[in-house]
């Protein structure tokens, strides 16, 4: 028994060390966001010294560098992520309910098309999708949610439909007998019952859209609109002399909300992110 205890303690200590190493990349970025460019290049893994410490300079530079303001990109990222995720949740949950309850031939065809769309990689449709979005003027942050709804519908419909199948019909029948129309039945009775899947799908879509690069890059009118990943990619790619410190600061700014979000809602995030892939 005692030997077992000693072994467990050793394992614990070992994991503390491994975890510190595992977090090294994030610490390094954080550290470097307070250092001068030359110090980042030559002494990447050293703590800031008196000479190399820059205070918040990199953050100020990062927000102001380039002709496109970073805060605008961040705002668009936030807008696109929240509005697309909300649109996907409402529309696909309704669609999934319709599909499982009506179960007509048409509904089944839509369902199987959705399942099929889950195995199609983005590269297959990227060119035609971007052209379609341009033709239909869906290339602004206010209209791109439609594209996200369309391309992301597959997984969401699949997950919602799987859950709806398990809800007993009697509840909805009782509601109908009491005079509830389909709209009220759905929003007052079914929608609240979907809560666990709503959270899972919501987390999955938020993580996807917030981090997505290629779809907004190809679809959005980039002279007017950027998102955080596009902004960071532009800073690195299009300037001959890259302000590394500024990029480090922007990376810190862009991953902070995710880390905070993760630490506060960890249970739901892990469940949501894993469920999506395991079922898909």
């Amino acid at each position, binding site marked *: 028994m005692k030997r077992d205890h000693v072994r*467990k303690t050793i394992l614990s200590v070992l*994991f503390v060390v491994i975890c510190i190493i*595992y977090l090294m990349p*994030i610490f390094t*970025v954080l550290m470097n966001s307070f250092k001068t460019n030359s110090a980042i290049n030559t002494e990447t893994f050293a703590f800031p010294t008196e000479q190399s410490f820059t205070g918040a300079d990199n953050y100020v530079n990062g927000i102001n560098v380039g002709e496109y303001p970073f805060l605008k990109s961040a705002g668009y990222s936030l807008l696109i992520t929240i509005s697309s995720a909300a649109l996907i949740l409402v529309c696909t949950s309704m669609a999934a309910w319709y599909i499982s309850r009506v179960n007509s031939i048409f509904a089944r065809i839509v369902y199987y098309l959705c399942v099929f769309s889950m195995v199609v990689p983005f590269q297959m449709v990227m*060119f035609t999708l971007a052209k379609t979005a341009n033709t239909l003027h869906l290339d602004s942050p206010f209209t791109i949610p439609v594209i996200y709804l369309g391309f992301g*519908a597959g997984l969401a419909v699949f997950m919602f439909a799987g859950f709806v199948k398990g809800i007993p019909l009697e509840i909805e029948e009782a509601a109908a007998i009491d005079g509830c129309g389909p709209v009220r039945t*759905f929003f007052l009775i079914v929608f609240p019952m979907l809560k666990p899947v709503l959270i899972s799908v919501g987390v999955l879509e938020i993580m996807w859209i917030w981090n997505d*690069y290629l779809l907004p890059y190809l679809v959005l009118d980039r002279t007017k609109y950027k998102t955080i990943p596009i902004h*960071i990619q532009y800073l690195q790619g299009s300037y001959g002399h890259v302000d590394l410190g500024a990029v480090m600061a922007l990376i810190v700014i862009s991953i902070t909300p995710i880390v905070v979000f993760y630490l506060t809602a960890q249970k739901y995030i892990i469940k949501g992110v894993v469920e999506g892939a395991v079922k898909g």
Partner: protein
Amino acid sequence: MKRRTKSTNSALSATLIRRPIQRMFPLFLLPTFVAFCIGFVYPFGKGIYLSFCRFTTTSNARWIGLDNYIKAFKDASFVYAFKYTVLVAIVSLIVINVLAFAVAYALTRGIKGSNSFRTVFFMPNLIGGIVLGYIWSMIFSGILSRYGTSIVLSTTYGYWGLIILMAWQQIGYMMIIYIAGLQSVPGDLIEASKIDGANGWHTLWHITIPTIMPAITICTFLTLTNSFKLFDQNYVLNGGQPFVFMADGTVIRSTEMLALNIYNTFYLNANSRGTGQAKAVLFFVLVAAIALIQFSATRRKEMQQ
């Protein structure tokens, strides 16, 4: 008697549930259906059609039959990207799954702080590919610059750099699936094997691993599809560099994976878009085939149980 109640029941539910919902089609299904057509069905169909055409934009397409596919197969950079992707996929599959399983196994032994360790391992998974690429390119340049080299100068460094990046990103994810699997292994089964005199390795090999086979299947296919679809990380970390210029004028981007190769075929040269679309179709067939194999593999497992 029973049958009659059942049929009246279904008639009842048809008038109560099915028909009223069906009448609300424009509200419930139409929005998703229209968006789905715009965001998937039409682009997919058009993509298939365009793979048989010569075009620079969608409006000037001219039917040329299988030429694009022939060109895609003859393209040395595409064949190379395919082989390179397979190499990345196999090695990352082994590295990620072995490490993720080891971590999951250790963290289900009831050691102190297991939950915090889990939190740490899962975290990198939430960082997007572009940012992830920059974080690691900074780290690799910090290490390699001391030896006077860089990740964009060497195929070997580029390859292992990408493997390290992918492992860092995905170990936590696979670990969660393995932990769920390990927690479902019945305790009395392990107890019984211990009483029968099996040591730790025996129990692991003959009891634990066979019972968590479903988790292993899931993780195997997940890592496989993740590798095949990988784009952002590859694009940012080294963008396919270093380039090798062949005698016949083709350029082999020596660390370029399939998704990036398709992207470059489309956007580096507008005249090769037809070939790009044909490559994209082949890419789709490949990814779909992997998914199909996964589906039948999990199906067969379920039937055995």
